[in-house]
C-alpha cells in the first residue's frame, strides 16, 4: 500500500463519524493497537518533548524500508501516533521525505498538529520526515 493509499483508507474510516466523541473513541481504540514500544528506547535520547504530552520515536532501516515505532503518555495523542506510523512506516526514505500528509486535515485533526497545540505531534511528524531525509542522503552517498 502506498502512503497515499493508506491516507485515503484512513479518511474513509473517519467518514462515518459525525460526532467528535466517536472520533476520539476511535482514536482511543487505535491507541490500543499500537505496536508495543521497546522500553530500551523510552529514554530522553528518543524523546520528542512537547508542552503537554511526551512522545518517544524510534526509527530503523529494515532492508530498503524505514520502520518506525513510537510511544506517548497521552491516549488521544497515541491514537494519532498510531495513524502516523500506519501511514509512514514501511516505506522508503525517499517516499517518506517526499510525502504530503493530507489525511490529518481531512479527518479534522489539524488542530492537534498545529504548532500552537505544542503537543509534540508536529515535532514527531517533522522528525519522521527528517529520518526519511537523513536515510535518503545516506543512500545517495553510498
Amino acid at each position: 500500500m502506498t502512503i497515499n493509499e493508506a491516507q485515503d483508507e484512513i479518511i474513509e474510516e473517519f467518514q462515518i463519524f459525525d460526532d467528535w466523541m466517536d472520533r476520539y473513541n476511535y482514536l482511543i481504540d487505535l491507541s490500543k493497537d499500537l505496536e508495543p514500544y521497546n522500553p530500551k528506547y523510552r529514554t530522553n535520547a528518543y524523546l520528542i518533548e512537547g508542552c503537554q504530552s511526551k512522545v518517544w520515536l524510534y526509527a530503523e532501516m529494515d532492508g530498503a524500508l524505514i520502520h518506525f515505532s513510537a510511544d506517548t503518555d497521552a491516549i488521544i495523542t497515541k491514537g494519532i501516533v498510531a495513524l502516523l506510523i500506519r501511514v509512514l512506516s514501511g516505506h522508503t526514505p525517499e517516499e517518506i521525505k517526499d510525502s504530503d500528509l493530507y489525511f490529518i486535515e481531512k479527518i479534522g485533526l489539524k488542530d492537534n498538529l498545529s504548532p500552537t497545540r505544542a503537543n509534540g505531534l508536529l515535532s514527531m511528524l517533522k522528525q519522521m520526515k527528517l529520518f526519511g531525509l537523513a536515510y535518503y542522503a545516506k543512500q545517495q552517498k553510498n
Partner: protein
Amino acid sequence: MLDVQLIRKNFPVLGQMVYKKPLVYFDNGATTQKPKQVIETLTNLYAEQNSSVHRAVHYLSSQITERYEAARMVVKDFIHAEKMQEVIFTAGTTASINLLAFSFGEAFINPDDEILISEMEHHSNIVPWQLLAKRKGAKLKVIPINEMGELRMDKLEKLLNGKTKLLALTHVSNAIGTINPVKEIIQKAHAKNIPVLLDGAQAIQHGNVDVHDLDCDFYAFSGHKVYGPNGIGVLYGKEKWLEKMPPYQGGGDMISSVSFENTTFADLPLKFEAGTANYPAAIALAEGLNYVSSIGRSDIAVYEKKLLTYATEKFERIDGLKIYGNSPDKISTISFLLEGIHPQDIGLVLDKLGIAVRSGNHCAQPLMKSFGIEGTVRASLCFYNTEEEIDLLCEGLEKIKQMFA
C-alpha cells in the same frame, strides 16, 4: 447578590456555541472575557478620540492625555494606592516584574545578595529573578510549600535573613489557587527591612486589593485578567523605592531633556513609561475596573467562594478525581487529575464538549514537580460562571472516565 444571567449578557463572547454546545468558559485564569463597556471604549476611542498622549497641544491630544491620566487615577483608587506617581502602566504582569527585576536589581542587588521567591511562582516571577541573579552574582532562594499547596511559614523566618534584598511572592497561585497570607508575610519581611513585591496577576480580579493596607512595596498585575484589554498592566511601587531606581528602558515620554552628552529623566511615573503609552488599553482597563467596582468586589468574592465550594463538593464525589491545592484560602480555581488519565486527554475531550479548561503545567513547572506530577487540568472560574456550568463539567468528567476506562 449578583444577577449572573444579567451579567452574562454583558459579555458578548459567552453567548456562543462551540461544536454545537453552549460555551462553558473555565479558563479565566489565563484570560477573562471582556464586558461590552471595555470593548466599546476601545472601539469608540479609535473612532473618535485617537491621538498620542503627552505630546501635542492640540485638542485631541489633550483630551486623550486627560483620559489616560484619569485611567491612572482609577487604577490608583482601585488598589488604594496613595499617589498617582506610584502607578506605572506596563504591558502586563510579566513586563512589570521584568521592569522591577532590572531597575531594582541595578540599584540594590550586589554579589551574594539573596532574592527570595516561593515554590508556587508562575515562571514570570522566577525567570526575571534568575536572570538578575546571574547578572549580579546573586542567589535565588525558594520558600517551599506543603502537601496542601500552602507556603511553609515555618521555613520563612530562616529564609528572610540579612542577605535577603527582596521577597518576590505571588499573592495567589495561578496553578492551584492558594491565597497566600501576604499581609502577615509582609510584616515579617518588613521587620527585617526587606521589601516585598506581590505578583497580583491572579488576585486582583477576585477580591479587594489594598496596597496601602497590605503595605507591600510593589504590586504587579495584568489588565487582561481583570476584564480589561490585552497589552496593558500595572506596576505599583512605593515612591521611596521608585525614586531610587534607574529607568528600565530609554526613549520618548520618559525624558526631561536630551543632549548627546547627557539626558535627564522625567519625574515619576513617566520615568518608567518609555515610548508611546498604550493609552487605548489603559483607558479601557479603567473601564474594566469601573465595571468590576460597579458589580462590587465583595459580592464577587462571596459569589466566587460559593462557586468554589459547590465545585469542590461535586468534584469530591467523582471517584478517582484528585484536587491539587487544598488550602482553605483559595480563589475559585481548581486544579485536578483523574486517575490514570493524561490531563491533555481530559482537556481535548472537554473542549469538544464545549468546555474550555487549561491542561498542562500552567507555567509553574517547579510547583508541578513538587507535587510529583507533570501537569493538571485547571478549571478557573469567575463571577459570570454558574453552578449549571459546573454540573456540565462534572458530567463531562464522568463521560471521560468511561471513555478512557
